[in-house]
């Protein structure tokens, strides 16, 4: 059977060797390829000028899972739902909390608490959820990868142990590279024990700045907060959690996880710390899970008019200032995660100007706190026309281009997905 379906321009290599041959073919014929797993994140990044899909979902299946060693290896095309099921059965979880973009991008979502899409797609975009502030991000949990570079060469990096400084950490380079450097076939990640108990503390009625101060107080305490988000009223109203939805005010949301006696003790301490900020409410297991999934998957920003979605990573303290500056100029809504350091902004394109709000947003960032902004959701022609990722200065852009060339000198993998010409 051919590995190519001519009608859909979809190549399905079955082995690493076939994948290498396919990439070599593309190099020779000067074709560009788009790597794809389940396609749940295809709408992220700049649109690609190719119809040639390389389907990596065949590289599927967990090949090693040793809960005692906190390590799991799986094919890059393995559904995250499958990995989720396996680790959950062993009382573990993916601590970095990958985002399910099904809701935000309108692609098919996954089952359970983890995103649709594949392990490879998750690593390719490298976008982590609320627990990132405490447990680290996807970048911190990828221990090793193997695959085929844009040179058509089979390679590997890293290993299956957590503590490893043997050679350059190219796994980090793969994470968030949007499939522009190599086609991954196998990925090893660190897994961790799932918390035995979860409680969420809500603080009501805070404005954005005050909420940020409360989150800073919580995160600067020894209570090991594993989530710190703020939902202004318009976002809170969209929650399915009754306490949040019906409060008719903003909700500042803090999560405590761990063994039961510890959670109970820390929750009490956190209540003492935050009672001066406003009225408190406590969410238990199910409501906690629902609310944090809504926050993680950007479900509270659904809006028929404010359709462009931006993600800003900045200095936590600067978050509210930056949001206020932007929202004074563009019609939009904001939610805060990561203690105020992560802003999700949904804006009305009609108020944003032809650059999708990019200039206003990036000026606010650079003047008020630093960091970077990514256009997560917008029609293809907008993502084609304006910088989706934070523009780089000359030296950094040149280095980025040289890194790309070191893996993929012919630009056969995802050419232009992150930056024009790269």
């Amino acid at each position, binding site marked *: 059977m051919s590995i190519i379906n001519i009608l859909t321009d979809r190549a399905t290599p079955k082995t690493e060797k076939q994948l290498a*041959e396919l990439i070599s*073919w593309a190099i020779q014929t000067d074709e560009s390829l788009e790597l794809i797993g389940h396609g749940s994140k295809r709408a992220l990044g700049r649109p690609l000028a190719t119809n040639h899909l390389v389907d990596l979902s065949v590289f599927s299946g967990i090949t090693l899972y040793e809960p005692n060693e906190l390590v799991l290896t799986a094919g890059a095309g393995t559904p995250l739902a499958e990995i989720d099921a396996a680790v959950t059965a062993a009382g573990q979880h993916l601590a970095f909390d990958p985002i399910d973009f099904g809701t935000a991008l309108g692609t098919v979502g996954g089952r359970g608490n983890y995103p649709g899409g594949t392990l490879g797609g998750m690593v390719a975009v490298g976008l982590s959820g609320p627990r990132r502030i405490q447990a680290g991000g996807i970048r911190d949990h990828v221990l090793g990868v193997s695959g085929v570079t844009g040179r058509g060469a089979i390679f590997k990096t890293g290993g299956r142990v957590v503590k490893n*400084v043997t050679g350059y950490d190219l796994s980090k380079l793969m994470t968030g590279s949007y499939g522009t450097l190599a086609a991954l076939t196998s990925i090893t990640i660190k897994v961790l024990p799932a918390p035995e108990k979860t409680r969420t503390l809500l603080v009501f009625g805070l404005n954005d700045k005050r909420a940020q101060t409360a989150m800073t107080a919580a995160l600067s305490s020894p209570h090991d907060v594993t989530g710190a988000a703020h939902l202004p009223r318009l976002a809170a109203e969209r929650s399915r959690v009754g306490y949040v939805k019906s409060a008719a005010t903003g909700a500042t949301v803090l999560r405590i996880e761990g063994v039961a*006696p510890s959670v109970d003790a820390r929750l009490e301490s956190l209540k003492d710390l935050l009672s001066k900020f406003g009225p408190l409410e406590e969410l238990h297991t199910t409501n906690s899970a629902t609310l944090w999934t809504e926050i993680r998957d950007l479900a509270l920003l659904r809006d028929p008019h404010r359709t462009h979605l931006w993600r800003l990573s900045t200095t936590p303290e600067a978050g509210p200032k930056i949001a206020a500056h932007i929202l004074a100029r563009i019609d939009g809504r904001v939610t805060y995660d990561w203690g105020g350091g992560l802003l999700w902004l949904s804006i009305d394109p009609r108020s944003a100007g032809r650059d999708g709000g990019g200039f206003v947003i990036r000026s606010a960032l650079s003047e008020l706190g630093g960091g970077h902004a990514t256009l997560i959701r917008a029609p293809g022609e907008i993502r084609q026309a304006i910088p989706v990722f934070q523009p780089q200065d000359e030296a950094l852009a040149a280095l980025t281009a040289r890194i790309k060339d070191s893996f993929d000198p012919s630009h056969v993998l995802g050419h232009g997905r992150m930056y024009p010409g790269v």
Partner: protein
Amino acid sequence: MLLPDPDQTIIDRRADIIAAMRKLVPARGEQDSVITQQSELRAYESDALTAYHQLPLIVVLVSTTEEVSAVLAYAHENNVKIVPRGAGTSLSGGALPAADAITLGLARLNSILEIDLDNRCAVVQPGVTNLAISDAVAADGFYYAPDPSSQIACTIGGNVAENSGGVHCLKYGMTTNNLLGLEMVLPGGEIIQLGGKHLDPDGYDLMGVATGSEGLLGIITKVWVKLLKKPATTRAVLIGFDTSLDAGDCVGAVVSAGIIPAGMEMMDGAAIKAAEDFVNAGYPLDAAALLIIELDGPQAEVDYLIEIVSKIAEEKNATTLKVSQSEEERLRFWAGRKAAFPAIGRITPDYYCMDGTIPRAALPQMLEAMDGFSKKHGLRVANVFHAGDGNLHPLIMYDANAEGELERAEAFGEDILKFCVAVGGVLTGEHGVGVEKRDFMPVMFTEEDLNQQQRVKCAFDPKQILNPGKVFPTLHRCAELGRMHIHQGQVPFPFLPRF
């Protein structure tokens, strides 16, 4: 270990290079910034891997990012090699000088530039010591988590270069997991900033690649580190076992119970005895293996977990078990572990410290193999082990003055490292490749794996002037690595229909 032959044409230009450096890096008051006298260069001839030494061409001590940039621009332009150096505590020869290279000393860049507790980070220069960061924020109850044993002396710049670990990285991660940003000077002199006070990089994670790159990709001139709030309570449990197997089982059972302790350390009989003789930490001298398991967090959590851990230890045939009842007692438990290296130093003229990592389950196999290697090479070994994350530190005892012992110690080390890789582990967990493990890289990586790493090196440092002779066993020219090797005149994918 062969280092690249020094380039005589550079050595011949030494006087010119000195003149240029004096212009670019002026003296600071009374203190000269360019060191050229042999007697003074002697202080820089090796790092903590003392088996290797070499006088540098000259030493240049920079005080600003701009000086680093000027030196690198000159070096790039004039094809002069650079060996960066922090405090010189590398255990893998990462800062070993070369006869035809400038040793670039960064210790004068030692200011803490900013402490920003609201954003839980600090901005520091690379020459600040690891411990100085934690000390600077201790009064506010914060600390910087990675704690390599050399933390009093080692610099954060060196920690970034080596991706240093420490006894607490099981729970809190290595250097790479505790950084927010880097300022870095590229070999052409360009200054770039990667990250900052925000989380996660934009674009390729170049900070991730730079961390642990052993001074081969650029010179770190500023570091943004994450600060953590100190846990409310910290207690340690000291557990003795009759066999290493029981101790290893206990480690696995603790993790299986869903517990990630702050630290989980193991010592074997030889290490226990040496440490106890040295510092009287109260270790059980009849134990064949000792675990120190540290728990931190709120008191309720620590008390609860200590009970679980104690129960697990008993099930795994612990022969002694002591829970620290005071901070003083906890520190005494650690005193023996932290003094293990010097303690071994007291019972042998020299020792060679290894650093492989293995999957934890392979520990019994590893210890058995180690016994065999010890007999084969006729050298004693003591084992200190970051048991929680499988990182071994066998200390091979030898006498450098005894004919052939250094070579036997190195051969012993090679056997250990190859065994680590054979059981699914790696050559180095936290000390780095440097010159020490350079030639073993092919045990773990294929030629293509290493070529791709070198291509990344070339993207940063196209003339390969930074830290020559380290990490890579075979040197390739960047132009040669850049070429594509596609079989011409033959379609490599004959069964592929056209799109």
